């Protein structure tokens, strides 16, 4: 449809409760096709629409009406050069980083002036062993008035690499494991499911259950690591050590299943590479029972400690309205009272066979983002035990098939950080033509920038860790 109609329709649908989950371009000869994917979470519905650009250089931006579209429009402009007119903040997303690329007009950071106003620049290399990104704070004394986040340092051209090496299925699966190393199962699972659906391959119930178990183990491990790091950030060192040691136990369990602490090597087109034997099942069961006791013991001490609560509560608050407006996803959104969880809204793998309760909290502060991790850990333990003890029989791997030609497929899943969306488009000779990837961080980085406004600059590490967003997942 014409872009004018697409724009109106998007605005109308989003105002009626749909959510924008993908918005991207694809080059088709001389034409550029713009695709928009919307979901309705309560109705589990998906809407796809597109508009063809044949030489037009701009269109009317959607962002002034729908703020959650701001990054999508910037990304589309960066990749295809079609300008969203009257976009309030047309800043580069991954390329043209200030001072690095030789572009004609370098991007200027938002600037605050006034007496006693000062700016603090942090990055791209940070103090700890973490990924690179640049943060620029405009402060008055200790108080942060504005934070501008500059990313793109990790840009490795992943979407293009998928197309370049479409012939080697092993390469594709391994590349999807490296989109971000902390969400190996989340991303590789989303990708292989898309490829399987595009080639009409159905996988066994056993393979589905094993994928689900591994995804939940990944969620538990990262949540434990995050609670450990949050404890460290408020100088509660016992929590830092105890939760850290629990995480080690869980990633070692992951290794006992698939040989890698982060789940690399598990996913394959048509199923999984590793089985869970009877002995291993008993071992995991014992570990999970032990973990349940340990995590309850440690979390009760953590969440009843006055010095911890003093730092966690009312810090970095994101209200429900803001969360909805900027399109937040995952546990961070649920901590602000937004009821979304792709495991229950758009079920995949073994989640098709049971209901996942959508756990939410209301306060939207660091406390809520920490506490929701604790209850999600308990919930995940239950899910894994149920899957383990009712592990269906079945082949590990189904036979592969060629991809369907001229098709578009949307694959949605819930990683530990939130909703992951991959879109795959094939050409007339059944080859990959476009792979579009969206990590939950793409929605949530802006929430961090809002969360630290009017907070002390010393609370930034705490707010940052409470979101624990991915640089590599955003930068691709």
């Amino acid at each position, binding site marked *: 449809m014409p872009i004018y109609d697409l724009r109106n329709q998007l605005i109308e649908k989003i105002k009626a409760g749909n959510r924008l989950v993908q918005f991207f371009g694809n080059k088709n000869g001389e034409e550029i096709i713009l695709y928009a994917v919307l979901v309705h979470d309560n109705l589990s519905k998906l809407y796809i629409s597109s508009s063809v650009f044949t030489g037009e250089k701009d269109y009317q931006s959607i962002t002034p009406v729908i703020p959650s579209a701001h990054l999508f429009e910037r990304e589309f402009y960066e990749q295809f050069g079609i300008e969203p007119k009257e976009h309030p903040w047309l800043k580069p997303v*991954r390329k043209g*980083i200030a*001072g*690095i690329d030789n572009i004609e007009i370098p991007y200027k950071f938002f600037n605050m002036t006034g007496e006693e106003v000062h700016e603090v620049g942090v990055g*791209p*290399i940070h*103090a*700890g*062993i*973490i*990924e*690179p990104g640049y943060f620029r704070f405009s402060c008055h004394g200790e108080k942060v008035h504005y934070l501008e986040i500059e990313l*793109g*340092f*990790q*840009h*490795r*051209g*992943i979407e*293009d*690499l998928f197309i*370049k*090496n479409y012939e*080697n299925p*092993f*390469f594709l699966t*391994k*590349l999807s494991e*490296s*989109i*971000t*190393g*902390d969400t190996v199962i989340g991303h590789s699972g989303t990708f292989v499911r898309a490829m399987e659906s595009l080639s009409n391959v159905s996988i066994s119930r056993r393979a589905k259950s094993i994928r689900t178990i591994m995804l939940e183990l990944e969620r538990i491990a990262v949540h434990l*690591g995050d609670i450990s790091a949050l404890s460290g950030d408020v100088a509660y060192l*016992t929590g830092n*050590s*105890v939760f*850290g*040691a629990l995480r*080690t136990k869980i990633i*070692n369990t992951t*290794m*006992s299943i*698939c*040989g*890698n*602490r*982060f789940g*690399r*090597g598990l996913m394959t087109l048509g199923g999984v*590479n590793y089985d869970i034997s009877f002995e291993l099942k008993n071992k995991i069961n014992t570990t999970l029972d032990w973990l349940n006791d340990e995590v309850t*013991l*440690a979390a*009760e*001490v953590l969440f*009843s*400690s006055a010095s911890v609560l003093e730092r966690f509560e009312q810090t970095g608050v994101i209200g429900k309205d803001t969360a909805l407006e900027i399109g937040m996803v995952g546990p961070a959104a649920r901590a602000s009272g937004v009821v979304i969880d792709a495991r229950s809204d758009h079920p995949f793998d073994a989640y098709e066979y049971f209901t996942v309760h959508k756990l939410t909290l209301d306060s939207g502060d660091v406390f809520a983002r920490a506490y929701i991790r604790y209850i999600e850990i308990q919930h995940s333990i239950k899910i894994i035990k149920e899957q383990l003890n009712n592990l269906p029989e079945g082949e590990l791997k189904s036979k592969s098939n060629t991809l369907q030609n001229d098709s578009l497929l949307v694959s949605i899943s819930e990683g530990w950080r939130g909703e992951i969306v991959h879109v795959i488009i094939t050409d007339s000779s059944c080859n990959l033509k476009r792979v579009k990837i969206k990590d939950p961080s793409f929605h949530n980085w802006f929430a961090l920038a809002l969360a630290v406004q009017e907070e002390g600059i010393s609370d930034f590490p705490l707010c940052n860790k409470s979101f624990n967003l991915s*640089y*590599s997942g955003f*930068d691709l």
Partner: protein
Amino acid sequence: MDLLILRLHHGYQAIKDISNAKLSDAHRGFPVIDESKCIDNCRECESICPTGAIKIKPLSVDIGKCIFCSECESFCTNGTIKFINEYKLGSAERNKLIIPSGKSFANYHSEAIKARKEIHKLFGHSLKLRQVSSAGCNGCEMELSACGNVNFDMGRFGIDFVASPRHADGIVITGPISKNMAVALEDAYNSVNHPKLVIAVGACAISGGIFTESSELNREFLEKVKIDLYIPGCPPHPLNVINSIIDFIGKK
């Protein structure tokens, strides 16, 4: 009171004898190659390898490129390549990382890192490192962080990661080095005082790994410096990292 009970319950978690710690059999470490088992000469292992780590005639696996996915092992019905759970993979020389047929782990490990007197004298008692994530996927970064946690506790050997390159004796590079990180990486290296070490951790830093063919990389920096220690893996296990560094600085 609850806090004290929790602390007591937590106990002492660190692995006591770090150089003799055993990993689970499931772990994919050193590749053992037996070319005599390659009877049908199908070359499939070479063509399916996602990072081009396998070369045929003579058969070899470059663990500087290998991401230890073991697809070659499961694809080959003859059992020509087998990944065993030996994890100490560090090497001081790039060419030693190319594992030929018949090479045993013991043989590899005894040759890969030769403790040098001058290195031991300079860094043997205390080694402070600045890590630079140059477009790494966060896998290597998480394992390097884990080196300092209560289980592995690298600090007890005098080896630590520090915040400022000015306090560091060397840099640890992870990731394939994107164009956008090339400047920052070089700045960090130049900010470290002489004498300094360069350690490359993970397949991406050593060879580009799965991102080798990306047009968004800029690996010119590696042509200007000498890498002192290579630690292969995707990502390398903390025991691999710690033992490789301990061997390199001659800490016993």
